């Protein structure tokens, strides 16, 4: 499809990788409506309501959406699945494909000045989900992986030396001292990145041709199931 045709396409984007999450509607690459979610209610309760509300606000019906975009993770397993199952159903009914965007990549594409970005999400178990990117499309340098913050910083030490560096994500607060110790005071630390759905919508526009069938859209868990981890430890 030509670029000019793509410019008229509607994209609905959903992020459920954090408690609050967010939704957005874009026409071509331009976000026309976006909203952050209410963290006091679960995604299970808020969906599909939040999506209906944002499409209404954008003045577009679900049946007019051309691409359904969703954050694939990492994040809370359950929340990712709730978001994905919702998007799968919408895409299936309307015979439209799904575009998945890594949450870490979306973090790395939030506005910032650094040439290199460390996406740094709280893994909720004294660990982090991390990936390292060069700013600009498709430049994943390392990760995604899950692990102890210090271990990851040590493992990626050479790549993290490149400056200017931004560290973005909700794991920043808990690891501020460690980041200062390992990376010095140079990097810009962004603990509260903006809602990701608008970023996901824009990335989906860039990747318009990479859509997959609804059933093929699956979470990027990064972490293995506990049962599998326990068995490996037992071996």
């Amino acid at each position: 499809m030509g670029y000019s045709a793509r410019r008229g396409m509607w994209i609905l984007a959903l992020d459920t990788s954090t408690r609050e999450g967010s939704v957005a509607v874009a026409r071509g690459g331009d976000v026309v409506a976006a909203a952050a979610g209410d963290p006091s209610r679960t995604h299970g309760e808020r969906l599909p309501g939040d999506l209906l509300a944002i499409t209404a606000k954008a003045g577009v019906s679900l049946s007019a959406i051309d691409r359904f975009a969703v954050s694939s993770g990492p994040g809370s397993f359950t929340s990712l699945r709730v978001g994905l199952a919702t998007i799968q159903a919408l895409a299936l009914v309307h015979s439209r494909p799904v575009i998945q965007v890594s949450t870490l990549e979306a973090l790395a594409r939030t506005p910032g000045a650094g040439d290199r970005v460390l996406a740094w999400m709280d893994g909720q178990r004294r660990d982090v989900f991390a990936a390292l990117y060069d700013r600009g499309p498709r430049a994943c340098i390392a990760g995604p992986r899950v692990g102890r913050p210090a271990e990851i910083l040590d493992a990626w030490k050479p790549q993290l030396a490149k400056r200017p560096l931004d560290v973005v994500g909700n794991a920043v607060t808990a690891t501020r001292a460690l980041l200062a110790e390992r990376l010095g005071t140079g990097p810009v630390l962004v603990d509260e990145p903006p809602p990701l759905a608008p970023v996901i919508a824009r990335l989906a526009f860039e990747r318009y041709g990479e859509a997959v069938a609804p059933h093929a859209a699956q979470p990027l868990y990064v972490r293995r199931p506990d049962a599998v981890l326990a068995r490996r430890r037992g071996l």
Partner: protein
Amino acid sequence: MDILAIETSCDETAAAVVADSGDPARPWTVRSNVVASQAEIHREWGGVVPELASRQHVRDICGVVERALEDAGADWTDVDAVAVTQGPGLVGSLLVGVAFAKALAASLDLPLVPVQHLAGHIESLVVEGGRMPLPAVVLVVSGGHTNLYLTTAAGAEGLSHRLIGRTRDDAAGEAYDKVASLLGLDYPGGPVIDRIARTGDDHFVDFPFARMTHDDRNAGPAMVRPAGLAEARRGRQLEFSFSGLKTAVKRHVQRRRAALGCDGRLPEEEIAGICASFQRVVVRTLLDRTFLAARRFGALSVGISGGVSANARLRADAAARAERAGLPLFLPSLALATDNAAMIGAAGLRRLHAGVTAPLDLNAKASLPLDDAPGGWQSAP
């Protein structure tokens, strides 16, 4: 009216299309019934691993729903409502089905009908056997439940289910699965024990029956009036307990292993004898309580549903007892005994006709009791 039903409460991803038949005697027509079982995935773990189950539901659900439509020869425009299992079950599994069903209902602008999983198991009896003479006593016996219900009419076409007995510890299906595992048999244990027990002597070992009335002198509160105590005793006669039986099997197996000096599996004929003897106790316990309840409540029919109702011995013995009691017996076909969405669709249609729909903020519930009759178990003192 055609309802699309989705069931993901445990380790089966299921979807079905069910329609009103127009015949009150056999109200539901199953137009399609698709189940993707995860048994192969969980077998190596000896039981359902919740996170693996949830991951598999997201992989299978699109294909299962599309297949259910295709098998029914239907497309989206033929669907008039969406039913979904709201609970009880594994919350991560339930959430996949609920999120999916809600998004379907929202995009198609259709009513959403939440269904309690056990109400689905009870409805499977009507799907198969037609309208039950009411009141009915129904035993729902599965991997997670061993519940006795008194099912009565509520309104013109509605049903009301009052919980009149349940297990205090393990569910019967759980006992099957645990006993199978300690005999070194495959998961799920129910079908395996069912098969092996056919070749065994059911008096090979004398396993104990749990007595819920006489052994229980201290169970009641100290201050109850005599009438209350009698009532409480009578209530306990309809309770089940299978953990003592499981322990007895375990001890027996340990003793035999020590005697034979083997750490692996016991000889085949011993395993068969143990399976048959264990099953005799389970089946008799289930049927004793069920037919006692039927007598006590003046039931006009008896039903048995849930995964364990697939058991051959249970089905044969239940048929014999029902014949003796002069009561019609309702059993699901094997396809509808274990988890499926056809039963959820049928129960969903019944609820929809009674005016029950859910808003789009419907949430899955891991624990969701079924007892919609006043004076039921939950509200009993």
